[in-house]
């Protein structure tokens, strides 16, 4: 079976400075040679800290920006070869959800108008059935169909994100790129939206590219995870494998850096020193070598390739086989007390 999406050697440089004559004098290598596949019905998470290029990858996959090099194939066809009409048709199959839903909703349009717009543009349903469809969409994301007459400012942050999701779903897409969809939301609302995204995926067979800086959120929602650092994927694996045995020193540092709500839990800490280097002049060799406690001379000169094992766990590190055991980075899988679990189950039931 062909994967839904095949990303091959994707590169994107942005011009950071120009000379007086307009010639570029400095470029940011936002995406520096990235490849991955995404199957239908699957969630791939792109994880990393600010400036690692994860959002740029998301925008390239939707062809919102043009790449410097590389290809993105959607159901086997290179999307950068599409003409304008083909591109518009393709947009129906690939949608985007933003971090700040409010910024993406026109404040002068009612929610009904916002949801009708894509239906009209892509002629998804006949005109006389549009209103009915809008109501169904609102119900799908857990909002009252009567809310179609209201304006975006009348909704809370979590409800606005639901409207953003409903708009993405309106055109019955195969792929949704979710760019930090829950980062701006409070914890209890974040859980509502994550549960909704998972339920929709099961029901509609959607594929997600889920962009996030939060590994705990990603653990909950992703089938596979690609960890990015300065424009490159440093490790990619099934979610379970990545959390059970992280290989790359950067993945390990990220995991050990996340505060865990278990007071007094024992864990090894691997705190990276210093800041992320400027993407205008990234270090040669392995990008992490300036902060990596395990770096040797080879790391400073030779870029490590992303090498996969037969199980599909790929790592871009010269030394990962020699690194110490990493099982104590995250406190061992703890269980809440039976009483607490039952109490929490009451919340799950109440929400259904």
């Amino acid at each position, binding site marked *: 079976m062909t994967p839904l999406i095949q990303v091959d050697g994707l590169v994107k440089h942005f011009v950071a400075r120009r000379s007086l004559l307009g010639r570029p004098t400095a470029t940011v290598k936002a995406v520096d040679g990235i490849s991955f596949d995404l199957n239908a019905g699957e969630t791939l998470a792109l994880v990393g800290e600010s400036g690692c290029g994860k959002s740029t990858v998301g925008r390239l996959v939707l062809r919102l920006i043009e790449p410097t090099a590389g290809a993105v194939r959607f159901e086997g066809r290179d999307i950068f070869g599409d003409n304008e009409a083909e591109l518009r048709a393709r947009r129906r199959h690939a949608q985007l959800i933003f971090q700040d839903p409010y910024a993406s909703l026109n404040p002068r349009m009612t929610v009904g108008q916002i949801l009708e717009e894509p239906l009209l543009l892509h002629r998804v349903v006949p005109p006389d059935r549009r209103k009915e469809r809008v109501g169904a969409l609102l119900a799908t994301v857990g909002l009252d169909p009567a809310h179609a007459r209201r304006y975006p400012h009348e909704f809370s942050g979590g409800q606005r994100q639901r409207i953003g999701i409903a708009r993405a779903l309106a055109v019955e897409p195969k792929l949704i790129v979710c760019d930090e969809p829950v980062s701006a939301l409070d914890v209890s609302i974040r859980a509502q939206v994550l549960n909704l995204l998972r339920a929709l995926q099961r029901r509609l067979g959607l594929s997600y590219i889920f962009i996030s800086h939060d590994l705990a959120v990603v653990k909950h929602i992703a089938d596979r995870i690609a960890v990015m650092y300065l424009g490159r994927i440093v490790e990619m694996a099934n979610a379970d494998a990545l959390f059970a045995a992280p290989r790359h020193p950067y993945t390990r540092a990220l995991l050990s850096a996340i505060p*865990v709500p278990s007071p007094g839990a024992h864990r090894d800490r691997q705190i990276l020193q210093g800041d992320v280097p400027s993407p205008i002049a990234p270090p040669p060799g392995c990008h992490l070598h300036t902060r990596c406690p395990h770096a040797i001379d080879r790391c400073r000169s030779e870029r490590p390739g992303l090498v996969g094992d037969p199980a599909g766990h790929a790592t871009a590190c010269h030394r990962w086989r020699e690194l110490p055991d990493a099982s104590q980075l995250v406190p061992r899988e703890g269980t809440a007390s039976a009483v607490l679990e039952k109490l929490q189950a009451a919340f799950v039931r109440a929400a259904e």
Partner: protein
Amino acid sequence: MTEPLLAVDDLRVAFAGDDGRTTLAVDGVGFALQRGRTLGIVGESGCGKSVTSLSIMGLLPKQSARVSGSVMFEGTDLLRAADRTLRDLRGDRLAMIFQEPMTSLNPSYTVGDQIAEAVIRHRGASPREARAHAIEMLRHVRIPSPEQRVDDYPHHLSGGMRQRAMIAMALACDPQLLIADEPTTALDVTIQAQILDLMRRLRAETGTAIILITHDLGVVAELCDDIVVMYAGQVVERAPVAALFAQPQHPYTVGLLGSIPRLDQRRDRLAAIDGTVPNMTAPPPGCRFARRCPFADERCRREAPPPVEVAAGHMSRCWRAPLEHLVQ
């Protein structure tokens, strides 16, 4: 027990809106903090945690905020203290750090000058001594080559370094109490880990008491001795950190703990708390959490529950606490 360093009692803050309606942001908050301890105040947007900290610091706008109750700090009621007394205390005995360092760093002065200012103002140091102290403080917060950095302007520094410089400024006069309002929320996780590690070390070295305001239960678990959970302007639960995470006694805390995706536990479905927080211009009668609570009954919707002590040092504002019996 000895006299607490800080005792907040029945704190109420109401804001007058332009339309004449008042919003109750903080409604009868009380807690005490012993010297050298770290207290976490946890809650979601709008629960009143930041307003509580701003009223302790005397930083609320006088025209629109109506404040009552008392905040005793080393024998002074901060809510009734004169502006001059507050100015003498702030930056000296009491200090605060914020989520966004640029709200407290002035972009047009060097970081050295800004740290030195506090030492000159409160300790009567000479400019030369103050500069030496500023360099010492930068070294203290592990900023590399402090002799050069002291002459840098805030925009020369990265986000993590600015956060360190702000901490250096707050700690310059060795305060008894540091209020940290979401100090790591805007930072990337690897930088957050550096700052949390720094705060842990500084606390061990200086013995400063800390109030840590955050929405992140993971940060609280790693740094705090005691926790106050706030919901809709009230303290709904107060407990030592281990008890709060192991045996939460307010349904809101239970839901909050169940709604975070966790690295150390497998969860099929998150225990999302249905609904949203009540509108505080017209708070509902009865328990503020009743509408979202799976355990609420008739009384919860009608009468506001008083705080009760369910175990030693463990307070919950819930009619149905202790919660164990609900699932047995």
